[in-house]
């Protein structure tokens, strides 16, 4: 790994380190910002490092991706974007060597399970760099308008006088609902999601946009579910089996919706799609535990020494509780997620 790092200039190393530290110190919070910065970093790496063949570039990018993912394991957007970039590099290399389009949708190719041979990567090509940079720009654009692409689909999913339930604060869902509210009148119920109270922020923002909003406590979710027509939530990550790594409380919400036969719609941009699986119901490797002072403040006094307090951040929602995914490329069922994975990520990169 150290020889790959040597390819990186000092400037690049500095940038990567400051990016990691800003994420660790929570200055960068949303997945969108993380994804955007990662693409920017990747573009700089491609343009500024010396590489003669695609193989070396891939190795450098994988090293950087591994470095960033191990620094902040819970932030999957960094790894996902790196894998996208790697797929772009491999595709462009294959195109330049073959001279013909490596059409991934070619049915014949799918059926005979042909893959681009790895030999292609070690051959140097003159205009490979230019092609890669162009594709990276396209990726950057796609990430920038992903929110917009999701919200223009909103009118297909929300009908008039509907009651929609959501929880927590997701910028994607907020834009989705606001886009629909421009043309339709509907009602939103927001669960406040203690202890972060993100739901309160969401409720206030939706109401200020003119949407009729009701704010409820998390405990009232089951009680109110009988009046709800749809549950629309955002997520932190979409896992490879179609399940979700969403904010805590999403599993209970999805179970309540399932009991009342209410469809659960998840709005997520494609950079949230991760090739990782949820490995153990243990959740120790899956979840992130933060400080308990939001749950039980220090002001409670002596009892704190006798009690264990836990404050997990994420929740796993199994794919059978999710009805529909709305990605920026369109709507999909959870069973289709594996296909998207093979379209956007190369199988060699699943393990950075």
């Amino acid at each position, binding site marked *: 790994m150290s020889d790959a790092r040597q390819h990186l200039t000092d400037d690049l190393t500095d940038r990567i380190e400051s990016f990691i530290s800003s994420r660790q110190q929570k200055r960068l919070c949303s997945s969108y910002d993380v994804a955007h910065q990662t693409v920017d970093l990747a573009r700089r790496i491609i343009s500024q490092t010396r590489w003669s063949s695609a193989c070396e570039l891939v190795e450098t990018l994988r090293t950087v991706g591994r470095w960033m993912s191990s620094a902040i394991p819970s932030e999957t957007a960094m790894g996902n974007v790196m894998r996208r970039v790697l797929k772009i590099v491999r595709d462009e290399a294959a195109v330049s060597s073959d001279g013909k389009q490596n059409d991934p949708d070619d049915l014949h190719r799918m059926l005979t399970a042909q893959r681009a041979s790895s030999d292609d990567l070690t051959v140097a090509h003159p205009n490979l760099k230019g092609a890669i940079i162009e594709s990276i720009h396209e990726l950057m654009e796609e990430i920038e308008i992903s929110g917009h692409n999701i919200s223009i689909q909103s009118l297909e999913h929300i009908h008039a006088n509907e009651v929609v339930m959501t929880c927590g604060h997701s910028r994607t869902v907020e834009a989705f609902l606001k886009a629909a509210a421009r043309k339709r009148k509907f009602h939103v119920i927001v669960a*406040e*999601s*203690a*202890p972060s*109270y993100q739901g*309160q*922020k969401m*409720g*206030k923002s*939706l*109401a*200020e946009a*003119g*949407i*009729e*909003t*009701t*704010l*409820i*406590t*998390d*405990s*009232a*979710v*089951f*009680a*109110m579910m*009988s*009046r709800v027509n749809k549950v629309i939530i955002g997520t932190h990550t979409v896992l490879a089996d179609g399940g979700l790594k969403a904010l*805590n*409380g999403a*599993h*209970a919400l999805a*179970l*309540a919706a399932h*009991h009342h036969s209410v469809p659960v719609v998840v709005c997520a941009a494609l950079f949230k799609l991760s090739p990782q699986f949820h490995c153990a*119901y*243990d*959740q120790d490797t899956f*979840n992130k535990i933060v400080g308990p*002072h*939001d*749950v*039980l*403040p220090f*002001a*409670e006094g002596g*009892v704190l020494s*006798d*009690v*264990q*307090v*836990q*404050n*997990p951040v994420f*929740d*796993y929602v199994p794919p059978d509780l999710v009805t529909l995914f709305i990605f920026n490329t369109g709507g999909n069922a959870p069973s289709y997620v594996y296909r998207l994975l093979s379209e956007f990520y190369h199988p060699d990169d699943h393990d950075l």
Partner: protein
Amino acid sequence: MSSSSSKRGSKDIPCSDDLGSAAAQTQAAVPSAKGEAPAVEQHGQTKRKTKAERRAEQKSAKEAKKVSKPPAKEPATDKKQKMTLEGSNAPKRVPSNIQVDDKKHQAKVAKKLAKQQAPPRTEVQRQVKMFSHLHQFKREESLTAHLSFASGGIHPAFLRLGLQYAEGKICGSNARCIGLLAAFKQVVRDYETPPDKALARDLDNRIKPYITFLAQCRPLSVSMGNAIKQLKVKIAQIPPDMPEEKAKDRLLTAIDRYLYEKITLADEAISKTYAQTKISNGDVILTFACSSIVVKVLKDAHHAGKKFRVIVVDSRPKLEGRECMRRLVQHGIPCSYVLLNALSYVMKEVSKVFLGAHALLANGYVMSRVGTSLVALVASSYNVPVLFCCETYKCCDRVQTDSFVFNELGDPEDLASAQSNGACSKLEGWRDIQQLNVLNLVYDLTPPDFITMVITEVGMIPCSSVPVVLRVIHSV
């Protein structure tokens, strides 16, 4: 149904008040007296009743029309449901506190409240439309500001009790019932029969405004409602020629007995006889919010030497779980504490869930603190057994399928108050935003498919057996 016998008793007292009113009064009250051994009736009324009985049979077809105009002649509070009797055509009366959207009805109720000196409550500035059939009051600065100390005012024990309910200082259905009965005992002790009146009727009249006051402070719980019904039956059973001291002693003994049998002994039975058998060594027990009976069960199990640990799940805005946690820690039980969001995270290691109930409904649903149904849902999805602990006096014959038609709404400001870490609330100034409503539900309904078992003092029953229990209780 034999459960109507107690209702009949309570219904007779109001009709006997209005002896001065027209015969139509007795007509409305007559179905209540049909076929009853009139131990409680005044002698003068017996003849009128049999005549009126016949009249009732003739006019039973018009009864439905008459009921649709809620009679101003009917002075009794509508808070308790009036049951139909065997063979009678009088339809069930809907409680007035779920008819808030009916303006005419509310006007009549307001007049009655003013007559009884009950403090008025102000409605919340912006009501949630889905709950416009329920009262949505905001917290008052002072409920008793306007009360005069003229004779016939509300007894100070009830004033104190009402204020304690409104502040939330007495919270939980058992605690509220015990407080209520203690206040009643004080009232009975201080009571003096006026020279020309009968104790039974007069005491009952005295109690009515107290109950209205309490209901204005905070809606009556099912446990309180059942206790009041029992008390009224006991009062009505006092013969008119009994000396005052003896009558008061009898009432006090009856109240003590009710407390002892229905609450203290029942709790002992639930805890020591039944629930202990369900707790084994190495268990991880989950509980939600604070239920006095569940705390007792866990405490007794711990003293019996069983080794287990408890996870307390809590929710906003009441945060009652902290109280539960403190009590358990005091007894030395190892505890964990989480908020409701972390439920899926902790549920994988839970072996049993013990929950308390506010009321057991006749169709098998359990009414409890809001959030209980979510706990039961997640537990049943992880195949963890859910056990409710509840005394039988909390069984009620109401049926309900969702949490909307009958509920209590708290003050929405509770959600907007400052968060625990001292940061100022994200919801500050929410009243200025026209489209934002804040909803603070107090109770919710758990469907029977999530409930494994209900532990009562008569045994461990499935929740569909509640009507059987009701029948057994009322036939005693």
